[in-house]
């Protein structure tokens, strides 16, 4: 049997780095000032995220995320919280786009620092789990784009559908 191959793919999905982010999620905190806030929801599985962003000079100064869900969605949100502080809006959106493409099998552009996101590369072999990995990032994109359009914090929520 190819049980060995299954174990290899499971190991590649649930890497130690991923489990570490799941067990100790970064960004689980309260910000002293909130400029953007948005809820994300995956209606298929019930995973939920609340994201708050503190901005300064068109850049992300800090991010707080609270994600209730599976290993993949929580780890991805945690990696987002670790990566984002200090990034400009454009850099944040470029990162989100690269990660989306990564989940569909395209490697990130050379030179782009994707931090621990590399450890989520195995998700692409589990197509039904790609939405889990993208929940935090779709929420981020919607928060940033909505804010850009309206110039203030939106109150709508993101879904993966």
């Amino acid at each position, binding site marked *: *049997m*190819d*049980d060995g*191959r*299954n*174990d290899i*793919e*499971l190991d590649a*999905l*649930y890497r130690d780095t991923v*489990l570490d982010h799941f067990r100790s999620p970064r960004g689980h905190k309260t910000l002293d000032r909130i400029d953007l806030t948005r809820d994300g929801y995956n209606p*298929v*599985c*019930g*995973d*939920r995220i609340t994201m708050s962003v503190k901005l300064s000079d068109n850049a992300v100064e800090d991010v707080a995320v609270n994600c*209730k*869900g*599976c*290993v*993949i969605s929580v780890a991805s949100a945690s990696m987002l919280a670790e990566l984002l502080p200090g990034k400009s809006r454009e850099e944040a959106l470029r990162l989100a786009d690269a990660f989306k493409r990564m989940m569909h099998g395209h490697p990130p552009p050379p030179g782009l620092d994707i931090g621990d996101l590399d450890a989520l590369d195995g998700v692409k072999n*589990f197509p*039904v*789990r790609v939405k*889990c990995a993208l929940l935090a990032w779709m929420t981020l994109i919607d928060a940033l784009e909505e804010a850009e359009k309206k110039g203030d914090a939106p109150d709508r929520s993101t879904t993966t559908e």
Partner: protein
Amino acid sequence: MSTTTTVPVRTATPIPPKREIASTREDFPILKRMIHGSPIVYLDSAATTQKPEAVINALVDYYHQTNANVHRGLYALAAQATDKYEGARAKVAKFIGAAETEEIVFTRNTTESINLVAQSWGSRNLKSGDEILVSEMEHHSNLVPWFLLAKRTGAVVRHIPILDDGTLDLSKWNERFTNRARLVALTHVSNVLGTINPIAEIAERVHKHGALLLVDGAQGVPHMPVNVATLGADFVAFSAHKMLGPTGVGVLWGRRELLESMDPFLGGGDMIRTVSMTDATWNDSPWKFEAGTPNIADVIGFGAAIDYLESIGMNEVRRHEIELTEYALEKMHAVDELEIHGPADSLVRAGVISFNHSDIHPHDLSTYLDRKGVAIRAGHHCAQPLMERLGQNATARASFYIYNNREDIDTLIDALQSAGRFFGRR
């Protein structure tokens, strides 16, 4: 808490099985498949069941031998197709003990059957302030049609809560069932908790006040003997695909006089008697509710599924599920990390077990189990209000049918234990 149901008790197997249930596994070609290199362990029959060879053959035979449109052609093929289609209706009627074959309406699924009642009965009979009573354990398909109806008519949807053990809190009945209640829409068996609701007892309460009772039978009719003559409901909705039949066929059973009094559901061919350029008159029920060419092949396949179930006997189907559920509950209770939802007594629950692992999210569990060949469901099971009540975003769910056996449960338990080691590694 009363446990009055139409379900036979453990000892009540007056009719011996017509054939050994253990042998049925051989009849399901899909169960010979390997998934990710392991023999498939299919534990998601509450979502849809697998199909025996006899049902698959009925579909193929129909297209090979009998395909023609029904109720129209005057030639031999059309007459044979009509006989088979209407013959399946008669099989369904007999299977659930309907007084008349004309009480069986074919729809696409349970959801459409419930929507049919909401539309055709509800729009005519409900007015602003009238009440529809549902329960906290309903599937979305037995909630949303009533919300839509309430929006159209100004009616109000109220609900009966559940107790911590997963049974209905009937102590709240008098408070929630007011004299404005016109309809109670209740599931026979919870698709999450497995709870079997005491339909006969509830029917008595409902009818005393002149209201009607619709039963969502999607998880009931496939799994135990259900006789509409004694069940006490006014409408019962269920699906072929959850009882070995093809997808795309649902049933609405309704008492004849109710169906007769209702407006058509969809307009089109077959449901009319006469049509002029400005108006139309309706066919009799059930054809009044079956506009357009029906799902002929799949209805005929459903007839074969009913033949198959009757060759085993529904008492035997139920007995097998009680036995398997007791075995699974015992094994699962022995795994410390598992929280099992729903009633502890297998006599008031069907073969549906929802659970949460203290350290593993249902989706991670499902992905892991899949790689071991075990198919379980993870998610909110289209019952978000119930998830709220359970305090969970999602649960894992294993559900059984005639082709499952103790080895399937053993494989599930082994996989749950190895999942615990996999995700718990440091």
